[in-house]
């Protein structure tokens, strides 16, 4: 999945990667292309994890992991960081979700009757970005679809998602439907249909994903 997301990168993109799968995207940036990672606690130009020698408690990312800064990085307050995010200056945001629906709604932070830990920066990220990729499994462990007609969980953002990448498919949300753009290698259109609860448009030809 991270490899597929990497194909959406463009040279010179400022990118915010959520915690989990999105973080892995950094490992698949194509050769000759550079992206700069924004971390919403206040770092533009996040680098690799430090070594035991260079680790520094004052240098962390939004997931609270110890990190480094690349050459040319800048560090600023949380207000400045979210000015960048809210103001639409980040070129691409990649984050996980529990559910998305055909209206582009996303639910990613709260499961009623389970302990609520908070939304962190996710609501700001989905409200601020024009270009968001949601990465998640297509269905739950029980086989329940996460691509729905209407999100059942409380929302993180309304009408803000246009691109969804799952373990099965690459889909785009257009005019109240999921449009199936690509299949994951070896996955059939039938399986995707079966596991998509929301309205799905299947073009005549659905290519397999290509990776760089």
């Amino acid at each position: 999945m991270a490899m597929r997301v990497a194909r959406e990168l463009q040279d010179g993109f400022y990118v915010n990667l959520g915690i989990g799968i999105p973080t892995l995207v950094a490992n698949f940036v194509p050769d000759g292309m550079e992206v700069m990672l924004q971390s919403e606690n206040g770092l533009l130009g996040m680098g690799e994890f430090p070594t035991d020698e260079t680790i520094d408690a004052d240098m962390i990312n939004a997931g609270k992991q110890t990190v480094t800064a690349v050459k040319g990085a800048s560090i600023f307050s949380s207000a400045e960081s979210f000015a960048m995010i809210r103001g639409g200056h980040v070129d691409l945001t990649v984050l996980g979700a529990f559910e998305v629906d055909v209206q582009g709604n996303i639910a990613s932070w709260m499961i009623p009757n389970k302990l609520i830990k908070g939304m962190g920066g996710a609501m700001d990220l989905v409200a601020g970005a024009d270009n968001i990729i949601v990465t998640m499994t297509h269905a739950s462990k029980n086989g329940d679809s996460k691509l729905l007609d209407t999100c059942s969980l409380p929302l993180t953002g309304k009408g803000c998602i246009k691109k969804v990448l799952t373990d099965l498919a690459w889909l785009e949300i257009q005019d109240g439907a999921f449009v199936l753009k690509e299949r994951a290698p070896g996955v059939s259109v039938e399986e995707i249909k079966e596991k998509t609860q929301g309205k799905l448009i299947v073009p005549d030809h659905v290519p397999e994903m290509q990776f760089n």
Partner: protein
Amino acid sequence: MAGFDKVVGSYEEAMAGIEDGMTIIAGGFGLCGIPENLIAEIKKRQTKELTIVSNNCGVDGFGLGVLLEDMQVKKMVSSYVGENALFEKQLLNGELEVELTPQGTLAEKMRAGGAGIPAFYTATGVGTPIAEGKEVREFNGREYLLEESIRGDFAIVKGWKADRYGNVIYRHTAQNFNPLAATAGKITVVEVEELVEVGELDPAHIHTPGIYVDRLIVGTFEKRIEKRTVTESA
């Protein structure tokens, strides 16, 4: 220049005047850049019924987490909480109230509080549970929420270096919410690692100008790491 000398002699003096029921704005993100010793002083004082505005609530036994041990906190205003068991227990028991606020909105609420802006509009949270009871208004065809600013009776801040006038700089990502908190306290208390001579900090690179700072103290810090992540040494 006695009038501008913000340095106080003890942590007791630094937090003098804090009272039950007050609102405290705290800098820090996770355990990074938190005012460790000012928090410890609040614990020592056993001030109760506090409303604490901070992005997170520390962990069991460290950071703001220590204020939970003796039930000093009435309410947390945060974007992400529950990294500690005691917090969860008190929340589930109804002994602790939480007002979840999106991280960017929280940062902006502090900045606005310090900047004399009582409220602002943001697209963050429209159509979500946090929009409940808030005005929604359209600008240029898009919906936005009205969010009100936050001020605190005290702001507690962790800086890196400061001069006696209260000019402060922060180190790396320990900056985070600290300069915002610093603007939003009726009384702003800053603890730093190092006191430098007045004039040593470049005027163009001061993160928090002394006008925001009421009290300043030099401390020593544990700087606990919450999620230690390393690559192999080369």
